[in-house]
C-alpha cells in the first residue's frame, strides 16, 4: 500500500528518523552505525551521503524493544508500511497477515516500473551495504523469477558480491521450484507487503509460489512487468540477470560449513553460533543461487533499506517474528472449530526462540493442547508461554511478569519428555533431541472464582466515583503539570 519512499516520508511524520548527512561508507561502516542504532532506541537511520548510487536506510521495519518504551510498539513501522494507522491494534495487524488471502493482480499492473535501467554501472557502483566481511546486506529485498507462467518472489540473504554477480541464499523449496537457470530480478526497496508475502510463500511449510497475489492481498501496491516477471513497480533498485541454482541442499550450520569447504571463493555467513545470516533463514532449509547481472535499474536517488547482520531488534527479525506469529494465529484459530486464541507473538526480544499466546482456556488441559499444537506448527522455538485472554499484546512486561508470578514453579512449568527435536532458534550445546517447555500462566479453570486475584489497575483499585472525582478535581490538583509528557519523551 506504500512504496519505500512513501514509507520513509510517513516515518518522518510519525517516528524518529535520524538523518546522517556526513559521509558514511557502505563498506561495513553503515552496518556498524545501524547496529549501534538498534542498541540505542532503534531510530530509523537515513544515510544521505554514501559513496554509491544508492542511499541507505536502516530500521525502517524495526523498532525498540517493548521493555524500554512506553508508547511505541515493535510492529508500528511495519503497520505503517502496510498503510495502516500507526496506532492500529496488534490483533488487527495479525488478522490482516493471517488472512492469507491472495488477490488478483491484474488490476494492479501499471505500464512501467519506476526504476529505469542505468547503463555503465555495476554492483560496486550501486553501493549496496555490506558487512565488514564483505557480505551484502540485502535481506530486505526479494528475488523475482518466472516459471510456467507464474512469477514468484522469494526472500533472499546476501552471501557474496562481485561487480557483476550476486550470490544469494534462498529457501531450498524455492530453489527446487525454480528452473536451474532462469532470468530473474533482485528487487530492493520494495513494499513491506512484498517482503512479508515472500516469507509467507516460501518459509512457512507448504510453498505458495504465487507470492505477488499474496502480496496483493496485503496491500494495493502497483505492479509492473520486466521480461516475463511481475515485479513491484515502486522498487527502488532492480538488478536483472541470469539466475543459476548453485546448490539446492545447503542447510544451516553444517551444510553451510560444508558449502564453505566446497567453494573457496564463496563467503557464506550463516552461522548458528553467531546468529549471523538473515532471520528468515532460521529454521528454513536454504540453497545458494547466483545472479549474473545483465542490467541495473534504479529510481531517481534510490533508497535501499538494510538490516544489520545478526543484531537484536534488526528489521529482518521483526518481519520474521510477525510472519511466523501470523501463520500460527491462522492455523490455531482454524484448528478446533472455535477461535479461543486472542493473539500470538514471537516477541522480537526473544529472537524467534519464544512464543507467547494469549488464549481463553476452554477446559482443563487446553493449555497443554494449545502449547503442543504450536510446537507442532513451528520448529523455531522450544518455549511457549500461555497467558490469559485478557492480556494486552502491547504489554510484554506484564506478560513476562505473569510467567514469573502467576505460573506455579512446581506445577505450571511443564517440560516434555526428552525426545523432542531441537528447535531452530535456540543455541543448544548439543543437537540431541531434548525437551520443550510450556509455561501455563493462566488461571486454572477448575479454581473457584474467589481464588482469582484481580490485577491492581486504576479500574480495579478505584471505584467509578473515585475516578470521576479525580477527573473533576484534575485542574484543582494541577495534574497536567505533574505528568510532564516531556519526561516520557526523554525516556524513549
Amino acid at each position, binding site marked *: 500500500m506504500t512504496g519505500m519512499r512513501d514509507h520513509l516520508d510517513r516515518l518522518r511524520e510519525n517516528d524518529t528518523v535520524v538523518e546522517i548527512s556526513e559521509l558514511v561508507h557502505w563498506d561495513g561502516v553503515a552496518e556498524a552505525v545501524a547496529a549501534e542504532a538498534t542498541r540505542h532506541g532503534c531510530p530509523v537511520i537515513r544515510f544521505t551521503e554514501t559513496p554509491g548510487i544508492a542511499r541507505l536506510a536502516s530500521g525502517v521495519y524495526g523498532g525498540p524493544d517493548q521493555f524500554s518504551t512506553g508508547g511505541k510498539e515493535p510492529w508500528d513501522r511495519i503497520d505503517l508500511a502496510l498503510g495502516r494507522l500507526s496506532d492500529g491494534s496488534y490483533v488487527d495487524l495479525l488478522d490482516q497477515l493471517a488472512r492469507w488471502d491472495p488477490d488478483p493482480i491484474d488490476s494492479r499492473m501499471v505500464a512501467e516500473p519506476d526504476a529505469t535501467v542505468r547503463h555503465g554501472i555495476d554492483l560496486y557502483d550501486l553501493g549496496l551495504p555490506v558487512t565488514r566481511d564483505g557480505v551484502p546486506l540485502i535481506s530486505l529485498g526479494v528475488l523475482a523469477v518466472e516459471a510456467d507462467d507464474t512469477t514468484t518472489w522469494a526472500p533472499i540473504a546476501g552471501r557474496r558480491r562481485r561487480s557483476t554477480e550476486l550470490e544469494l541464499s534462498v529457501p531450498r523449496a524455492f530453489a527446487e521450484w525454480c528452473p536451474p537457470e532462469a532470468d530473474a530480478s533482485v528487487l530492493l526497496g520494495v513494499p513491506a507487503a512484498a517482503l512479508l508475502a515472500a516469507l509467507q510463500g516460501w518459509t512457512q511449510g507448504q510453498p505458495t509460489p504465487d507470492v505477488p497475489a499474496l502480496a496483493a492481498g496485503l496491500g494495493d501496491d502497483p505492479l509492473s512487468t520486466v521480461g516475463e516477471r511481475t515485479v513491484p513497480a515502486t522498487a527502488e533498485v532492480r538488478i536483472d540477470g541470469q539466475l543459476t541454482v548453485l546448490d539446492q541442499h545447503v542447510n544451516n550450520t553444517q551444510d553451510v560449513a560444508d558449502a564453505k569447504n566446497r567453494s573457496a571463493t564463496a563467503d557464506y555467513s550463516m552461522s548458528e553460533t553467531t546468529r549471523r545470516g538473515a532471520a528468515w533463514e532460521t529454521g528454513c532449509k536454504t540453497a545458494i543461487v547466483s545472479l549474473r547481472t545483465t542490467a541495473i535499474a534504479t529510481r531517481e536517488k534510490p533508497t535501499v533499506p538494510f538490516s544489520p547482520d545478526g543484531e537484536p531488534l534488526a528489521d529482518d527479525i521483526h518481519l520474521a517474528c510477525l510472519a511466523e506469529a501470523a501463520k500460527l494465529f491462522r492455523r490455531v484459530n482454524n484448528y478446533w472449530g472455535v477461535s479461543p486464541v486472542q493473539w500470538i507473538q514471537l516477541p522480537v526480544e526473544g529472537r524467534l526462540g519464544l512464543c507467547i499466546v494469549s488464549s481463553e482456556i476452554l477446559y482443563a488441559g487446553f493449555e497443554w493442547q494449545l502449547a503442543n499444537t504450536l510446537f507442532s506448527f513451528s520448529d523455531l522455538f522450544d518455549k511457549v508461554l500461555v497467558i490469559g485472554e485478557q492480556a494486552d499484546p502491547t504489554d510484554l512486561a506484564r506478560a513476562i511478569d505473569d510467567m514469573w508470578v502467576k505460573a506455579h514453579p512446581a506445577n505450571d512449568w511443564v517440560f516434555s519428555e526428552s525426545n523432542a527435536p531441537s528447535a531452530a532458534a535456540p543455541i543448544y550445546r548439543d543437537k540431541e533431541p531434548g525437551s520443550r517447555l510450556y509455561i501455563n500462566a493462566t488461571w486454572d479453570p477448575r479454581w473457584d472464582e474467589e481464588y482469582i486475584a484481580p490485577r491492581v489497575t486504576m479500574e480495579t483499585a478505584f471505584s467509578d466515583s473515585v475516578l470521576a472525582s479525580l477527573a473533576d478535581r484534575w485542574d484543582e*490538583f494541577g495534574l497536567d503539570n505533574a*505528568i510532564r509528557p516531556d519526561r516520557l519523551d526523554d525516556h524513549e
Partner: protein
Amino acid sequence: MTVDSLREYLGILETRGDLHRIGAPASWNLEASAVTLLLNQADGDVPLFEDVNTARLVGDPYRGSQRRPWDRIALGIGLPRDLSYEEYYESVIERLKDPIEPRTVSAADAPCKQRVQTGDDIDLLEYPWPYIHAGDGGRYSNLHTLIAPDPDSEWVDWSYHRSMIHDGETASVLLLAGEQTPNLYYYKYERRDEPMPVALAVGVEPAVQYTSVMWIPTGRNEAEYAGGLKREPVDLVPCETNDLMVPANTELVIEGEILPNERRDEGPFGDYFGYMHGPRRSMPLFRVTGITSREDPIIPFCVEGTGVGETENATSSLEVGCVGPDATLGLRTAGFDVECCAPWKSTPRTVYVISTETTDPSYLHDMANFIFTTWGMLHVDFFVFVDDDVDPLNQRAVIEALALHADPEADFHQFGVETMPKVPLNIYQTPTEKGNIQTGTSKAKTAKTYINATSDGDIDHDDSPPDVDQRCRAQQILERAGVEMDDILFAETEVKR
C-alpha cells in the same frame, strides 16, 4: 551533599522539578493513592499532598523511571542521578563496605520529638493513613522502618513490614517467618511469651529507608550501614516508652510492642506482584505506647501493585536501587564470582538475574542454593544466570538469553520439586494451600528454581570480535546526527564490558 531527612530529600526533588505539591485538600480514602497511581503510570512527578487532615502524605517518593529506577534513590544519598547502573551499583557497594557509626543526640536536638504523645493522648487515627486500593483490608502504613531488637544480643533489626491500622492504638503487622524480624518474634519473643518492643519509624531519612529494605546480615548494626550510605553518621535518639533508638530526623515514630499470641486480621492487599492477594489472615498485634513526630509530619506511602510491567513505584525502585547492590555485595562477600545481581525490573522480589563469568553448572547450583537458603528464601522463586557481558537490568537481553540459551532439557533446575517454603503473598497457590498458619508462611511448599541462561561459551566470539573502535566511531556518528548523549554514555559502558 548529605541528605538528612525525608523533607530535605523532597526539597531536592522539588529543586529538580520532580515534586508536585497539591495544596488542595485531598482525602486519604483512595484519592491520594489514585493520584499517585496515575503519576506512577505516567512517570510523572512525586505528589506531596499538603492538606490531608493533620499530616501530609507523599506518594511513592523514591519511584524512578523503569529505564533508570535508581535515579531518585541516588539523589537520596548524594549521588548524581545520571550514573550508569554499573557506576551506581559499584558506588553503593563501596559505601556499604565502609560503614559509619551512628551518633546519639538528645531529645531536644531530635526533630522527631517536636510532638510527643503518650498514654491517653495516643490516637493512631489522628493521622491520615491511606486507604490505598479498594478491596484492601484496611488503611496501611507501608513505607516505613520497623525497628525491633534481638532479646539475646545488642543487635537491632531494621525492616519494613507493612502494618494495617485497626483503631486508635493497635495495628496488625505482616510478619512472615523466615525473615529476620518475624523470626525474632515467632521463635524468641512469642515462645517466651514476651512482647517484642518495636518502633515504627515513618518517614525516615533516605539512607535509613534504603538500609531497611536491604538484607543486612544478622548481628550487624544497620545504622552503621545507613551511615555508610550517606557518608555521615545517622543521628539516633531514644524512644519515650521503650529502650529502642530511632532515627532522630524521622517524621513520625510510633512506639509500641508486638504482643505474643495476639492476632488481628490483616489483608487482603494489592501487593508487589501486581495483584490483590488474599485471603484475609491473622497477623501479630502491634499495640502503640507512644507517638512522637515532627511538626506537620509527612507520611510516605507506596501504591503497591503498581511497580510492575512498565510502571515503577517506590518499592520496585528500591528493590533495584538498594537490594540489587546489596545482594551483589553479599554474593561477592560469600566468595561467588558475580558481576551483578539485580531484580527483574518489571516484577521485583520474585525473580533475580545474576551475571557471572563462571558458568560451570555445579557452581551455579551451589550459588542458587546459597541464595535460596539465605536472603532469597521466601519471596524469590527464580534466579536466572546470564553471561557476564549481559546486563541483568536489560530485560531485552535477558529474555534473549532465556529464549536462546536456556535449554529446557538441561538448564531449568528444581522445577517441580515442591519442597521449599513460600510466603502467602503469591497468587499461584490456592487459599487452601496458603492456609493461615501461625508463623505466616504458606501451608503448602513450593519450588525454588534457577535457570542457566548462560551461553556456556557457545557464542563464537572469535567470529565476531567486538570492534571497539568501530563501535565508538559509529556512536560518534550517531551523536553528531543528534542521538541523545545519554544513550552514548550507556553504549560506552557496554563497550567497556
